[in-house]
């Protein structure tokens, strides 16, 4: 009973504001004359034609998602391993920081031509573009997380001869995991943005490509359906991420709650 009540409330909370905003959008654009702001009713009506009645879901959305996951997973692997290394060593950190900040500040669209020189124009390049964006929040958060490992735990591990991979996994990564997961969340939403940007170059399919194509061919209603779909995708992925986070970090949330004296 109580559980059911909580679920209902959570669903209501998740849907209330979007519903209100959509209603507002609907009303405000109901008799919109502006070419670029078609009535929401038209946009919603077009969703079916544009995405569901065609093979766009498998031809455009699926490859985009695959590239997104590829880039994201690579960024996780690279960000976490580099982050652990950089976070553990003051020297390495001092050595790398300016270069990393330099690379971080370069806009992906101008990075694309360089990447194409090395990785060609296929999916590899797009995956690399996504990687180049997701990497930073994951890397920075991992570095900060690793730096903050509790000294007492470090000494405990030394005393019990915890070394090598066991130390890395049981101490360093687990201890930094709340921060790493924060990085993952930020990285994922940047990844979606980069997914679109990567499809601005040398693409012939993809969700981002479709949106840009609609934009270029002045198919504005269709473009809006794409943007809505993109937002929906972001929301779904964020929800998945939350589920993942709750599972992996259940200890962390319990610990925090305990520290707060049971109050939330």
């Amino acid at each position, binding site marked *: 009973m109580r559980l059911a009540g909580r679920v209902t409330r959570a669903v209501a*909370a998740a*849907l209330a*504001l*979007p519903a209100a*905003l959509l209603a507002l959008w609907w009303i405000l654009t109901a008799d919109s004359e*502006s070419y*670029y*702001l078609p009535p929401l009713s038209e946009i919603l009506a077009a969703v079916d034609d544009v995405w569901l009645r065609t093979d766009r879901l498998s031809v455009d959305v699926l490859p985009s998602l695959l590239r997104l996951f590829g880039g994201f997973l690579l960024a996780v692997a690279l960000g976490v391993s580099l982050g652990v290394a950089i976070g553990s060593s*003051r020297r390495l950190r*001092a*050595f*790398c*920081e*300016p*270069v990393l*900040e*330099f690379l*971080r*500040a*370069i*806009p*992906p669209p*101008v990075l694309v*031509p*360089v990447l194409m*020189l*090395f990785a060609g124009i296929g999916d590899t390049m797009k995956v690399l573009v996504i990687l180049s964006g997701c990497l*930073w*929040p994951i890397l920075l958060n991992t570095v*900060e*997380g690793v*730096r*903050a490992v509790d000294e007492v735990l470090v000494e405990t591990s030394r005393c019990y001869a915890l070394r090598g991979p066991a130390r890395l996994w049981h101490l360093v990564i687990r201890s930094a995991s*709340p*921060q790493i997961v*924060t990085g993952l*969340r*930020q990285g994922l*939403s940047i990844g*979606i*943005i980069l997914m*679109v*940007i990567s499809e601005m170059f040398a693409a012939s399919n993809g969700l*981002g490509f479709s*949106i840009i194509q609609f*934009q270029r061919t002045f198919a*504005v209603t269709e*473009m809006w359906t*794409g*943007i809505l779909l*993109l*937002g929906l*995708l*972001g*929301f779904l*992925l*964020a*929800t998945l991420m939350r589920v993942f986070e709750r599972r992996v970090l259940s200890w962390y949330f319990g610990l*925090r709650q305990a*520290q707060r004296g049971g109050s939330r």
Partner: protein
Amino acid sequence: MTSAATRAAPARSSRAGKAGRLTAGNALPGVAGFAAFLASLEAVPRIGLVSPDYLPPISRIGTALVELAGEAGFWTALGDTVRGWFVGLSIAVILGITVGFVIGTLPVLREFTASTIEFLRPIPSVALIPLAVLVFGTDLRSVLLLVVYASFWQILVQVLYGVQDVDPVATETARTFGLGRWARTRHVTWPTALPYVLTGVRLAAAVALILAITAELVIGAPGLGNEIGVAQSGGAVARMYALVVVTGLLGVAVNLLARRLERWLLSWHPSLRREVAA
């Protein structure tokens, strides 16, 4: 990210002059790292990994950079970009902090806005370009719209995490001593959230720079991005990379500034305390 602020560190030495020495001590390996990076950039085209026609060695980019520095137009463009970046970032910071505090301190609001935030956050700014041009044309305001939209989320999310991290013992202490809601926000919530805000500013600063340049590149508003676009469409490869290097250096400068700000505002924070003590 937990309230590690509570650990008593044994560092009891004087704090004066520490920040200066720390950066001075840190600069050397940083410069060395950068030099190594430049050397590898020089080597890649020279040993024939890629054609120097498409990725010139860094020495040629350097020459182009010197040429750039001699052009008045370059400095105007740099000024335009920095202005767009700074104004946009400022708006995003103020907006993000305000909205973040309001949402963060009212759990109901937080609960009800979470899904909308997750929905709006991944919508790429680039998708808003036609809208921006339609509403604001191709001048600074369009750039600002994109910059603010993209960097706002970075700040907002950080502020939300920060506000959530307030130690209940600290809040209760403040309450018993008669601090009202506003005074508690000012003296307890704000200092707790400040480290998160600064990290947010650091992340947002980079995003804002990227967006300012991308927007100039795509919309054609004046600035470095536009210069990059012109160089690119004219096939002036070395010049284009010189401009890219300028954006990268801008990023490094922004980060240095942000670190300075952090050192100054957060000398009490455990992460910096530890650096001083260790």
